[in-house]
């Protein structure tokens, strides 16, 4: 019970963090029609910018400055990169974001080195918020959840209640018509891209110290975020939300289970020993298979329902 509650909370905070990344990615996908391979790189930049800023000014200014800096880079990327490349078609855009991801990674190597940096949880949040039976639950995890929920509530309100939100919603599906009504659609696209980058940056700020800030973080989170977006359905925010929580739970729970198929088979009365056929496969525990589980889920989803959980268009 204790294990279950703690793991549920952990998976929730991780799932919400994934959604901060996947929501931006899926909005940008609806808009451009291609996946932004550099999206997780903005997440990494958020973490590194926050680390750098916090060494001078502390965590709280970093919480504001880092996402803004990432948003600014996002705006530049759209305005001077993607908008120029756009006329050469989707493949060119895809390759552009792919190349950008590598450039950002090398840039991080150059500036901060290959080893993880010491980006720490702020002391004021480094205590236990409450205890579940014998486990002390860290306050920073609670702070992460509150930040994510607050940010996503803001995103939702902006998209549904404000004029710019309505313009964004309409532009995602009918950009030509929106422009013919006198709205500056190119600048709307830049705003969406910058906003998506800012969300990724913010996820980096609050995730970088909870997990680890190192040059490989973009690649490891990036692939998971793609799984989330494909699983949830390309272009669907609701789908991305559900998929984020599911994948978050799968990843968090699976590492804690030591069961394997052998456990199951033995329980069913099958005698297994080192001489049995496929013995190595039966002995693989769920925890050992944890890294591959999200991808298995994605492949299954693509077989059963190619457009994803709530996707409306073909990827």
């Amino acid at each position, binding site marked *: 019970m204790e294990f279950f509650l703690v793991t549920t909370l952990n998976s929730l905070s991780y799932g919400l963090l994934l959604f901060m990344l996947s929501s931006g990615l899926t909005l940008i996908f609806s808009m451009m029609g291609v996946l932004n391979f550099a999206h997780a790189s903005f997440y990494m930049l958020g973490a590194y910018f926050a680390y750098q800023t916090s060494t001078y000014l502390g965590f709280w200014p970093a919480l504001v400055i880092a996402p803004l800096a990432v948003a600014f880079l996002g705006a530049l990327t759209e305005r001077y990169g993607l908008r120029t490349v756009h006329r050469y078609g989707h493949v060119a855009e895809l390759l552009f974001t792919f190349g950008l991801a590598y450039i950002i990674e090398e840039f991080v190597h150059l500036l901060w080195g290959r080893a993880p940096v010491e980006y720490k949880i702020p002391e004021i949040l480094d205590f236990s918020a409450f205890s579940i039976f014998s486990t002390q639950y860290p306050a920073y995890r609670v702070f992460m959840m509150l930040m994510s929920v607050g940010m996503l509530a803001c995103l939702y309100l902006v998209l549904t209640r404000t004029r710019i939100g309505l313009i964004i*919603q309409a532009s995602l*599906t*009918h950009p*030509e*018509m929106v422009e013919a009504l006198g*709205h500056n659609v190119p600048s709307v696209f830049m705003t969406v891209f910058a906003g998506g980058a800012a969300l990724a940056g913010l996820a980096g700020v609050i995730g970088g110290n909870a997990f680890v800030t190192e040059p490989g973080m973009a690649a490891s989170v990036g692939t998971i975020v793609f799984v989330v977006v494909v699983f949830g359905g390309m272009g669907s925010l609701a789908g991305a939300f559900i998929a984020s929580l599911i994948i978050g739970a799968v990843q968090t729970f699976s590492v804690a289970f030591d069961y394997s198929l052998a456990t199951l088979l033995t329980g069913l009365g099958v005698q297994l020993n080192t001489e049995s056929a496929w013995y190595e496969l039966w002995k693989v525990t769920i925890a050992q298979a944890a890294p591959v589980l999200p991808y298995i889920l994605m492949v299954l989803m693509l077989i059963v329902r190619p457009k994803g959980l709530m996707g409306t268009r073909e990827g």
Partner: protein
Amino acid sequence: MLEVKDLHSYYGKSHILHGVHLNVRQGEIVSLLGRNGVGRSTTIKAIMGQVQSSGSVVFKGQELMGQKAYMIARKGLGIVPENRDIFPSLTVRQNLLLGMKGRKESGRWSMEDMYNLFPRLRERAEAPAGVMSGGEQQMLTLCRTLMGDPDLVMIDEPTEGLAPKIVDQVANLFDEIAKRGISILLVEQKLTIALRISQRVYVMGHGQIVFEGTPDDLRANEGVRKEWLEV
């Protein structure tokens, strides 16, 4: 008010318009007639800056060629496309709000005007626009463009596929538009409405203007009707 000269347009490598010329005066209703595929829709899209083009489009004394569509819209040109590009997930009211260029109602039309002209829009104000019938979507598209207070509105086949009762409502709206001093450039295939409400008509064939005159001129000219209009 609108003066189009030697307009050439291209979709990729195919050359669609071959030197179109036409003009629309203040408060005038002008129809652009012709069979499917002769370039009528392309003409108004080119004027709106949505198609790669060359030539000259002067509106209220300003050259529009080379400007972005949203700048052209802000100068007072409106377009109502044939495919009824409503925003399906937004409500009827939100669709109308996005027709406005600023936050506040300004100019000749208010939301209340639209609801009075088409009571159906008031009834469905909070429903997603995507669930409305084709006729209702057509009204919404027209009203949405009018909310932007254009001085000239280009309308592509507004009565295509509509029930006769709704066609009458749309015709009433045209009267109302003209009464408020707004010019209309109407793209039509059917002669009946176009000849009834227009002051002048153009006929297009193969990406060029092949006839211009009054509705009476066209009625009298059986040759043009046979060659370029009748199916």
